[in-house]
C-alpha cells in the first residue's frame, strides 16, 4: 500500500493555502487510483495548528511539526529539512505539494536531501496501480507529457486550479510529530517585510482573470480593467509589455517570465496573444478577447473575440454586468 504525504502550506496569517486544499483533494484520488493507501497531511510551521485543522477537513490524518524558525526565516529550506527527517523516520512513498514559489523551493531542496525524483508542475495527476502518473504542459504548452517515477518514490508539484478542492466526508485526526536534530542548512533570516506597491487580488489561483496588454494604453487604462475584474469577482492580470511600461506591478504578469494561470475565465483586453503571453494563459477554460485587430494571434485560440475598441466594449460590458447584478 502506497503512502502519500501532502505538504500543507501556510499563508502569511497561518491559514492553509487554497492550493494545499486542491493538492489534498487530488492526493485522495491518486491514492484511490493506486488501489488504496494512506494519505497524510504534514504541516511544518511555527504555529501549525490552524492550517492543520483546515487540512484535516480534506484528509484522514494530519501531522504537525512545530518549527519556530519558520516564523522569521525563509521557510522552504527549513521545511525541507524537517520533512526529510520525518520521511526518514516514517517512510512515505510520495510527497505532493503545490507548484507555487514555496512548493517549488521545498520540492527542490527535499529532492536534493532525499535523492527522490520530482514530477514537476503537474496539471493533473492520476493514480495507476504501479504509481502516480503526472500530466505536464511543456515547451510553453505546445506539448502535453505524462511522466512517472522509476523507483516508486518521489515528489510531485501541482499547479493551482488543477482540481476543485472538496473536503472529505469526515474530519481527520491531527497529531503532533517531532523530529530531533539541529538544522544542517543555513537559515536565511527575514530582516524586513514590505507590502506590495498596490494591493491586488492574487492571480495565481484566481477563478476569473481580466487582463490588459499594451492596448490598454497606460496606467489609467487599467482602471477599467480593475472595474471589470471587480464586477466579475476576479483578479487583474497583465502582459509583460504592460508591466515593463510600469502600468501594473510584476506580481500581476502572466506569461513566460511571469505566472502561469489556469482560470475558469480569461478576459483579455487589448492583448494580441503573442507566444510569450499565450504560454501563461492558454489552459484557461474560457478565453474571451477584445481586440481591434481581427488578425491578432489570440483570435486563433480564444473562444470568442470581439473586434472593437477595448474602452468602448469594456465600458459597455461593465454597464451590462452592473445592470445584471444591480
Amino acid at each position, binding site marked *: 500500500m502506497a503512502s502519500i504525504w501532502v505538504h500543507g502550506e501556510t499563508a502569511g496569517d497561518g491559514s492553509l493555502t487554497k492550493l494545499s486544499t486542491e493538492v489534498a483533494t487530488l492526493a485522495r484520488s491518486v491514492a484511490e487510483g493506486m488501489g488504496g493507501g494512506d494519505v497524510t497531511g504534514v504541516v511544518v510551521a511555527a504555529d501549525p495548528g490552524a492550517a492543520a485543522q483546515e487540512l484535516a477537513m480534506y484528509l484522514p490524518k494530519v501531522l504537525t511539526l512545530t518549527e519556530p524558525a519558520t516564523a522569521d526565516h525563509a521557510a522552504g529550506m527549513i521545511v525541507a529539512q524537517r520533512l526529510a527527517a520525518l520521511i526518514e523516520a516514517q517512510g512515505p512513498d510520495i510527497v505532493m505539494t503545490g507548484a507555487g514559489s514555496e512548493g517549488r523551493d521545498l520540492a527542490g531542496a527535499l*529532492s536534493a536531501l532525499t535523492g527522490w525524483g520530482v514530477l*514537476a508542475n503537474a496539471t493533473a495527476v492520476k493514480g495507476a496501480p504501479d504509481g502516480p502518473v503526472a500530466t505536464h504542459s511543456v515547451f510553453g504548452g505546445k506539448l502535453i507529457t505524462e511522466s512517472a517515477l522509476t523507483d516508486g518514490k518521489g515528489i510531485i508539484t501541482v499547479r493551482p486550479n488543477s482540481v476543485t478542492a472538496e473536503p472529505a466526508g469526515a474530519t481527520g485526526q491531527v497529531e503532533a510529530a517531532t523530529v530531533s536534530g539541529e538544522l544542517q542548512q543555513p537559515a536565511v533570516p527575514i530582516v524586513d517585510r514590505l*507590502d506590495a506597491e498596490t494591493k491586488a487580488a492574487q492571480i495565481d489561483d484566481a477563478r476569473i482573470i481580466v487582463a490588459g496588454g499594451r492596448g490598454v494604453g497606460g496606467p489609467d487604462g487599467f482602471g477599467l480593467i480593475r472595474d471589470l475584474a471587480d464586477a466579475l469577482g476576479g483578479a487583474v492580470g497583465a502582459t509583460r509589455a504592460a508591466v515593463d511600461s510600469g502600468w501594473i506591478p510584476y506580481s500581476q504578469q502572466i506569461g513566460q517570465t511571469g505566472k502561469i494561470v489556469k482560470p475558469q475565465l480569461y478576459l483579455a483586453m487589448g492583448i494580441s496573444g503573442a507566444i510569450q503571453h499565450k504560454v501563461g494563459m492558454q489552459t484557461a477554460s474560457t478565453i474571451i478577447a477584445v481586440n481591434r485587430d481581427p488578425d491578432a494571434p489570440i483570435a486563433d485560440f480564444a473562444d470568442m473575440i470581439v473586434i*472593437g475598441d477595448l474602452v468602448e466594449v469594456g465600458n459597455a460590458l461593465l454597464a451590462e454586468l452592473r445592470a445584471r447584478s444591480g
Partner: protein
Amino acid sequence: MRIVVLTKPVPDPASGGERLGPDGRLDRSNSPAVVNGNDEYVLEKALKLIEAAGEGEVILLTMAPDNGPETMRKALAMGATRGVLVTDPAIAGSDTVATTRIIAAALQTLSFDLVFAGVDTSDGVAGVVAPGVAALTGMPYLSYAASIEPDEGARTVRVKRITADGYDVLEAPMPALISGTQALGEPRYPSLKGIMAARSKEITTLTLADLGIDPGTVGLSGALTKVVDSRPPAARGATKVVRDAPDEAARQIVELLAERRLI
C-alpha cells in the same frame, strides 16, 4: 566580486518547433536554442553589479549535452567574463535530480561570492534545481528575488523576495545562491563589440569524470522520472468572432459568461 550565473540552453519558445524524439527527450534538431529567459535577467543583474563594483567576474555555468557553446556565446556577448561548460554524452536525458548534482559538483570546482539562477526554465518550468543545488552545497538560498544588493565590505547580500502579499527582505552571508525574476530588470542586447569580444572569451569544459560523477547515475539511465506519453494539447473549439457594436458585443459576452456559469 565574482558571480557565477547558471544559464541553461532552452528551445526558443518563439520557434514553435519543439517536439520530443522517440526516447522522450527534446529533439533539438527542430528548434534553435536560446538562453533561458529568466537566466538573462539574473545575468543582467550580475553584469550591473560587477560594473558598479568596477572589478570582478561574471562566470557562466552551463550544463548541456551538445549545444552549450552556442548559447554561451550569446551570454558572453552580453558581457559575461568567461564560461564553464559541463558537457558529456552521458548527461543527455538527465532529470532534475541529476542536473542538481552535476551543477552542485561543478560549483565546487569554482570560487565565487554569489551564484545566480533564474527561478525556472521555460522548457520544463520545474523551478527545483536552484533550491536543490543550495541544499547540496549548503549555501544560503534566497529565492524569487526582485532585487539583489550585495555588501562586499560586510560580506552579506540582501534580497527582496516576492511573496503573496509583498516582499520579504532576506539577508545572508556570502557565498549565497540566489534565484531571480524578471523584476530584476530588462536584459541588455549584445553590442557588436560584445559579439566580437565573445568569440575569444574562454569556455572551459568539464566532463563527468572531472567532477567524479559516475555516468550511470545520470542521464536517461539514471533518471528517477520517465516520460511515458506525449501528445499535442487538445485543440480548442472554434473561435466565435463578434463584430457588432459595443453594446451588442457586450451582450454577447455576457450571454457566453452566463451559459458557462461564470456569472
